[in-house]
Each structure stands twice: as structure tokens, then as C-alpha cells.
């Protein structure tokens, strides 16, 4: 017992003095926007990674080594590149986890690729993240493509039967902010809609910094649009929902694509009576069938204990699930050489419905997780509840009154 105490004191002293090599630790980079405009959800995403690391460390670490996370603040693209360089050359990380923002991820993963360091994307959705055919980049989270597909499936499986009409008879409008986020999701919506034989009557982009959407609303109303698909940030989500309400434009369904549609302040801004019934797609959120998302309660409990609050969005859960899949696989590997890590990760095979996010993990073309799925959500009585697919639903889908 005394020896144990002495050992611990020595180890602690070494840590304080910063003696190099005193620990058998493995260092990974956590690259997220921790400050600036994206800080809120950047931090929320990083918490998921931290909880995964805590859980692994408590169970003995990875390959017997404790994981140390080195944070890098990717406040903008240039800093993302600089921080990726620092993590790789100075901190000598074995892999980088990140990064919430697609543009930061695209910039930083290029650095990792050139240095031969594995990069695990846990939250960015843009096509280009995996579309560049990088060897060292893996993406675990669902993407813009999954989002487009889920939205169109929801129109076919839920909205059309709910309204009692054939899906092909619905007049569908796609409106979206004109940056790469809105444009890429809209492109996928269009493609999947055409595959399903849906009738798209409007496709309209607009700058996210708009202060007026009355022209769009009027246009949709004039054309008698039944279903509006909007991919938007917060300001434009609020503007559209408010101005549609004010113009007395009441389509059968409005379906958002994450972004502003997932946030509680959006609901507060437009009013619960206005947002009630509005549909959305996003990463797995917390009001969901817990049998479909095994382990979600443990995640929530760990989150509450560490941060003293409930999660602010599904970003932390998505990052947690992605990080756990990778870390558990690495635990079975032999060493942390980049080649070993790549080979190990390529072999991951987690069945659908067996993670806390409800989907499985299996990397396919371009190292994208082919089992990642978005969830269909609906604002019901002030809460964003999962309504699609049926086995993940925590509540019945409701048609707009």
C-alpha cells in the first residue's frame, strides 16, 4: 500500500514537472472550433469525444495506454490548418478527431493526409469531406446525402400517406441557402426525388444573410405548393417560418434539414404554435426509441455527471458514437502506427441498431460509414421528437392541422 502511494506520488510529480515519456500515454488531437461563431456546437461536439475518451480510459485505455486528448481550436480554415500542423508535429498525435465544421474539416484533413496521420471526421456533413478520395480520412457520421435521402423517404412514407394522396401528386418546393451546405443537400433532395418520381415545382436558392423572404413565400403560395423542403441556418429558418405564417401560407408539410430547424431558440423565436408539426432531419436526438439506440441512457447520465447539464444537441452523441467505434477498434489493434490504424478501422463492422445513435459502422467507398443514418424529427408540443424511421420513433408522426 505504501509503495503504491509512493509510486503514485512519483508519477504525479513527474506529470507536474512535465517529464517526457514518464507515461505510457497515447495522444490524439481534438480539432474543433472552440471559439468564434461556431463555438457553441463545436464545443458540444467535442464533449462527445471527451466522454468516449473518459469511458475508454476508465476501462483501461486503448491497448493498455491512457488516452490524452490535445485540443486544437479551429476557429477558421487557416487556423484549422495551423492547429492540425501543430498537433501533428509538436504534439505528435497518432490521429486527429474532429471537427463539426465541413470547411474546417476539408482544410485540416488535407494537412493530416500529407503527413500520413489518420483523421476521423465525426460531425461534418458536406460531400467534399469524403468526396476527395483521401486515404487517411474516415467519416463515421451521416452526411448531406443521407439527409437528402431521409427527407425524400419521409415525404413518400409519411407525408403522402398522411395526406391521403399519391406521393407523385404532391407539389414539392426545394428552397435553400446558397452556400455549400444548402446547395449540396438540395442537390441530393432533387436526385432522390427524381428517383422516386416526385414532382418538384420550385427549386430556389437565396443568400442566408437575407432579411426578407416574402417573395419566396408569395411564390410558393401562388403555386399552391404542398411540401416545402428548406435547408437553412437559423436566421433564414426563423424568417421563412414567420413569414409563411404571416402570409397565411399553410403547406401540408415543411421539412427542414438540420441547421436552424433543430434549435430550441428557433422554436422560441417563431413561437411554439407556429413551429408545431414542422418536420426536420438531423443527427440522432434524445427523444427517440431507446431500444433502437442502446446505450443512449448511459451516455446521457455520463454527460450529466461530467458537464452538470443535459446535452444541448445531438452533436455530442454523434461524436461520442463515432469516437467509440474507432477507439474500441483501436483497442484490438497492435500499436498506433498509421498503417495499423488504417487497417484496423477498415475492418470495423458494427451492426445497424447497435450504437447509441441507432446506426451501425462499416466503412465503404471513400472511407464513408455506409451505415450512418439521419433521423426524421418533428416539433411536437415544444419538443423535437423522433418520428422516422418507425423503429426509431418515440412518437407518432402527425399531419399538420
Amino acid at each position, binding site marked *: 500500500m505504501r509503495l503504491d502511494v509512493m509510486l503514485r506520488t512519483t508519477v504525479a510529480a513527474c506529470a507536474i514537472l512535465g517529464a517526457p515519456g514518464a507515461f505510457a500515454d497515447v495522444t490524439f488531437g481534438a480539432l474543433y472550433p472552440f471559439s468564434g*461563431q461556431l463555438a457553441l456546437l463545436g464545443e458540444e461536439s467535442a464533449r462527445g469525444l471527451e466522454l468516449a475518451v473518459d469511458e475508454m480510459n476508465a476501462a483501461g485505455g486503448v491497448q493498455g495506454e491512457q488516452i490524452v486528448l490535445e485540443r486544437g481550436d479551429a476557429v477558421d480554415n487557416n487556423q484549422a490548418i495551423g492547429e492540425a500542423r501543430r498537433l501533428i508535429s509538436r504534439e505528435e498525435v497518432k490521429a486527429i478527431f474532429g471537427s463539426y465544421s465541413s470547411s474546417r474539416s476539408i482544410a485540416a484533413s488535407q494537412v493530416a493526409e500529407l503527413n500520413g496521420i489518420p483523421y476521423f471526421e465525426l460531425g461534418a456533413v458536406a460531400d467534399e469531406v469524403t468526396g476527395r478520395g483521401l486515404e487517411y480520412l474516415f467519416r463515421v457520421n451521416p452526411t448531406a446525402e443521407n439527409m437528402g435521402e431521409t427527407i425524400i423517404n419521409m415525404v413518400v412514407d409519411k407525408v403522402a400517406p398522411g395526406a391521403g394522396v399519391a406521393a407523385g401528386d404532391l407539389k414539392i418546393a426545394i428552397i435553400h441557402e446558397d452556400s455549400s451546405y444548402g446547395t449540396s443537400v438540395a442537390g441530393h433532395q432533387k436526385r432522390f426525388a427524381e428517383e422516386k418520381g416526385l414532382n418538384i415545382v420550385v427549386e*430556389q*436558392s437565396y443568400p442566408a444573410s437575407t432579411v426578407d423572404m416574402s417573395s419566396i413565400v408569395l411564390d410558393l403560395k401562388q403555386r399552391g405548393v404542398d411540401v416545402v423542403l428548406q435547408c437553412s441556418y437559423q436566421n433564414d429558418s426563423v424568417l421563412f417560418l414567420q413569414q409563411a405564417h*404571416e402570409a397565411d401560407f399553410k403547406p401540408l408539410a415543411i421539412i427542414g434539414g438540420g441547421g436552424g430547424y433543430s434549435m430550441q431558440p428557433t422554436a422560441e423565436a417563431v413561437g411554439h404554435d407556429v413551429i408545431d408539426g414542422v418536420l426536420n432531419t438531423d443527427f440522432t436526438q434524445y427523444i427517440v426509441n431507446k431500444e433502437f439506440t442502446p446505450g443512449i441512457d448511459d451516455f446521457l447520465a455520463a454527460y450529466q455527471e461530467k458537464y452538470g447539464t443535459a446535452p444541448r444537441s445531438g452533436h455530442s452523441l454523434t461524436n461520442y458514437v463515432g469516437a467509440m467505434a474507432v477507439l474500441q477498434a483501436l483497442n484490438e489493434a497492435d500499436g498506433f502506427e498509421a498503417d495499423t490504424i488504417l487497417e484496423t478501422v477498415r475492418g470495423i463492422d458494427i451492426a445497424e441498431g447497435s450504437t447509441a445513435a441507432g446506426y451501425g459502422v462499416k466503412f465503404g467507398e471513400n472511407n464513408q460509414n455506409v451505415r450512418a443514418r439521419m433521423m426524421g424529427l418533428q416539433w411536437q408540443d415544444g419538443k423535437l421528437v423522433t418520428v422516422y424511421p418507425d423503429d426509431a420513433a418515440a412518437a407518432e408522426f402527425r399531419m399538420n392541422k
Partner: protein
Amino acid sequence: MDVFLQVVVNGLMLGGLFAITSVGLTLIFGIVKVVNFAHGEFLMIGMYAAFLVTTQLGVHPYAAVVAVTPLLFVLGMMTQKFLIEPLMSARNHDIQIFATVGLSTALINLALLLFGADIASTPSYGLRNSIEIGSIRLLTGQVVMFIVAVVLVIGLHFFLQHTQAGRGIRAVAQNRAAAQLMGINVSRVYMITFGLGAACVGVAATLVAPLYPTSPGIGTYFVLTAFVVVVLGGLGSIGGAFLGAMIIGLIDSLSGFYIGSDMREVAVFGVFLLILILRPQGLFGGRQTLSHVS
């Protein structure tokens, strides 16, 4: 026909919004001759102030004008006194532009620090309710904004034309050196004008806050259009700013409906470029042109 009327009315209402957010800018731009890039952030601060007053004291958002306008007046005066005036004598006036850009960035980040990146919504107290006149729908808050814009423009015009202080401001605008020789305290006039311009933004902020979600970056949404309006109307021309705002509002609304929302900015900024080329002093500007500003 009904739809056309609705589009025009929407354009005029949008014009009211542009007018009220531009009047203060034209005052500062035309008289102090400072390109105030922090104008949008003044609006943002005003909106947050209105949000805080409304939610903390539980009063109607319009009541916040009593607090917000003086606050912005003082902020404007201080900006002129401590930021712009020390740079007034600099040979290269571009430095003032850099100073206001710096101020704008600092204010955005200060707001991020204090309020976070999320939106704050000021209670609307029915200002988002629509009024129907025939088949035309209008928002209560927009109508009020339009009326206040008209009143503000007339009031400022009267102030500049018929009061001693207004005459002083015009004298300084016409010829700074001569005004100084006539015994006008130029530095004081600049301070008051900058304060007045900012106070107008304060009035705008209390009217805008209940209608738009407030966020640290919201100022940038309005400021570009405000610059277009001010240049179109003629620097320092209050009435010009109002008419410029109406024109831009109509172009925005008509092009948005009849061409497409992705073409609105092309239309608005196309007109802006045309004006710069064909009539650089603006539609209602006097002799001063953009080159006189810096």
C-alpha cells in the same frame, strides 16, 4: 394584379426597414464624412439593448426606445471623440475606415462573448400580427416602422433646416474651415452629429428587434444595403436616403418574385454599380461625391 400589388407593398415595407436603418448612416457619412463600417454593429447593440430592456423589465419593445436611443447617442459621441477625432488630422483618411472596421469586429466579438452565437428573440407583443386590407397583407410592426421612418426623416430635415444646431451642422458639412472661422466648434458639431446618427440607429433597433431574431452577426445583414441606400440617395441627403430605400426595397421585392430570390442581390448591386458609374453623387446628392468622403 393582387399579387403584383402585394409584391409592391412588400417592397415598400422593406423600403421602410432600409430607410430606418440608413438615415443615421447618411448623417454620419455625409456630414462627418466618415465611412462608418460599424453602423450595422450599432444596430446590433441597439437590438440587444432592446431585447434586454423588453425581457428584463417586461415592457413593450417600443418602450425600450427611451433607453436605447440615449445609449446609442452616447456610444456614437464616444466613437467620434475617442476613435475618429484622433484620426481626423491624419493625412490618409483611409485610416478611419480601418478604425471603424476594427470597431465593428471588436463589437461582434464582444457580443459573442456576452450573448453567445445563438439568437435572442425579443417578444413581439402582437407586432407580427398581420393586417388585411382587401387582399393585401401587412405586418403591424412593418407599418409602424414605415410611419416612424417617414416621421424621422421629416423630423431630421426640419432639425437640420430650421434649428440653430442644424444650421451649424450644415455649415460644417459645407465647409469645415469656414465654419470654424465663424466661431462654430467643429469638433463638438461632429460629436453631436455622430451621436445623432447613432441615436437614429437606436430608434431603428427598437423597431427592428421585435421583427427579426437578434444575433451578433445580424448587423452585417443590414449594413450593406444601408450603404447602397445612402450612396443611391446622395451622401448626407436625408430625403434621398428615404427615396433610395424605397427604390431598393422595390427592386429587391420585384426581382425576388419575378426573377428569383437568388437574383435579388444581383439586381440591387447592379443598380448600385450603375449609379456609381452614371451619377456618383447619388440621385439626390449635391456637389459632394464619394471622392470627397475620404
